[in-house]
């Protein structure tokens, strides 16, 4: 089910991915997983980029299941539908990983 999924946090920064890409993280196709960095404090959404680049440059922390909904609520309250659509949903929809044939 395609939906946004906060995967890591660093202070007030959050990395979101498409939930359908979750199985690829850390695996052979990890480099294909794209993410979007969201600054919840300053209300800034960065362009889409490879998740692994963020993970290697900073000490990101995993987001616990119970935190995920809270983060999504915050994201929903701080950004308009237009911003979420244009800067998060659309780029993530465009960069979906094609499942392997084998």
């Amino acid at each position, binding site marked *: *089910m*395609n*939906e*946004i999924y906060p*995967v*890591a946090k*660093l*202070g*007030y*920064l959050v990395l979101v991915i*498409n939930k*359908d890409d*979750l199985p690829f*993280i*850390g*695996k*052979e196709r*990890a*480099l294909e997983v794209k993410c979007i*960095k969201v600054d919840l404090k*300053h209300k800034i959404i*960065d362009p889409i*980029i*490879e998740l*692994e*680049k*963020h*993970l*290697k*440059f*900073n*000490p*990101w*922390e*995993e987001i616990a299941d119970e935190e995920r*909904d809270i983060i*999504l*609520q*915050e*994201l*929903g*309250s*701080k950004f308009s*539908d237009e911003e*979420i*659509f244009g800067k998060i*949903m*659309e780029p*993530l*929809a*465009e*960069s*979906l*990983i*094609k*499942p392997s044939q*084998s």
Partner: protein
Amino acid sequence: MFEKFTEVKPIESKEIIVKRLAREMLERFRARFKGGEKNEHIKESVSLPESISTKEIKVVAEEEKQKIAPEPKQPEEFETTGLSEPRTTEEAKPAEKEQEKKINKGAFESTVTNSYFEGWDESIELEGNPEIKEQIKQNIVQAEKTNEQTYVNDAYDLGISVEEFKSRLQAKIENMIERASFFSATQPFVLEKIMNVENRWKSQFETNASKTPLCQEARAISEMKMFGFNKTSNSSMSIMSTPTGRYSDIEIPKEVLENNKEKRPIYGYFSDEKHGAINGDGKIPPPTSVSGFGAVNVKIKKERALKKTTITFHDSLGQENNWPPTPAAKPHFTSFPLSYSASFSGGKIINELESTSRMNWGAKYTEVQYHNNLTVDDIESIHISANNGLSAEEIEEVRRTFKMYKEQHPESTIQLVEF
């Protein structure tokens, strides 16, 4: 609405499908989190309309992705800058090639590399895991072999021998590194932790619980390939030796992920601009191309960096074997990527490469891998500016962090530079 999503061919349809999918994701999101509040009664997301197939979307999205961002070319697919068909050295300069054969290349692929490795074991000091130097040596040898055709093509474009090309490239990158400073792009609140709590940088291996979903296998394998970090005697750990060549097929020993977490490489960049500018302009503003990772440019003491640092002239992600990291104290030309496109090939690289702050060779930024811990003692200065994307609040946060550190360590020589 009359789009037929069962036949996905025209480009327009792809755009429509992506927008449709994004809209559905938004609707699903809003159904759960309307106005920042969770709608508890909706347990699961709403289902997709029948008119759209996720599988089709994925195929289309993948096609689109390939159009937008083509995979890096393999050396064998190298494009020449000339208008004619690719040429070979055999056609071009048989006499020179014959002469090259007579040059004693020693045990390595070129005289440049042969010279490079003279005194390697004794004179190159590189802190890090015990295997690091041997792994780097292997990677250099392999990369030069793998990329040989690229060097041949570039040399031919310039009308010089391959040895001459490698020699000039080597001299160029040595000069660039000599003039460069080493930085870490750091977030303001991460800096606070580094300076006033942890006393050192940490990698995600330390900050993450070792469980899904943030698996660390990919990075562990990458660092094993580049540096031999936590290299296991189990030969099945070699990706190339698995039946399918995929590392999802192999079980990574727990100790590879767990051991020496605090010694994992820390990633930064190098630049010859005094404040750590690195972008297409070679100055700030505009913000650096690494500001997304952190807009505080922390400069590392050069004498310390040279003992514990390896470098690449690009993001090493996915390029570990092609253009491998080599020591900052003694960089090798294989750390410079030549495979981006024809516009960045041979002549342009040799003639136009000048600065490590102005990225004009196809990569977005340079990369540094700090080994054996990066600590507060390694910091020379901290460079902050609103022109690098920091808010007034973040600048104030850095000032506070610095002041607190200075109060506790009045003897420290670390400088805060606001520009």
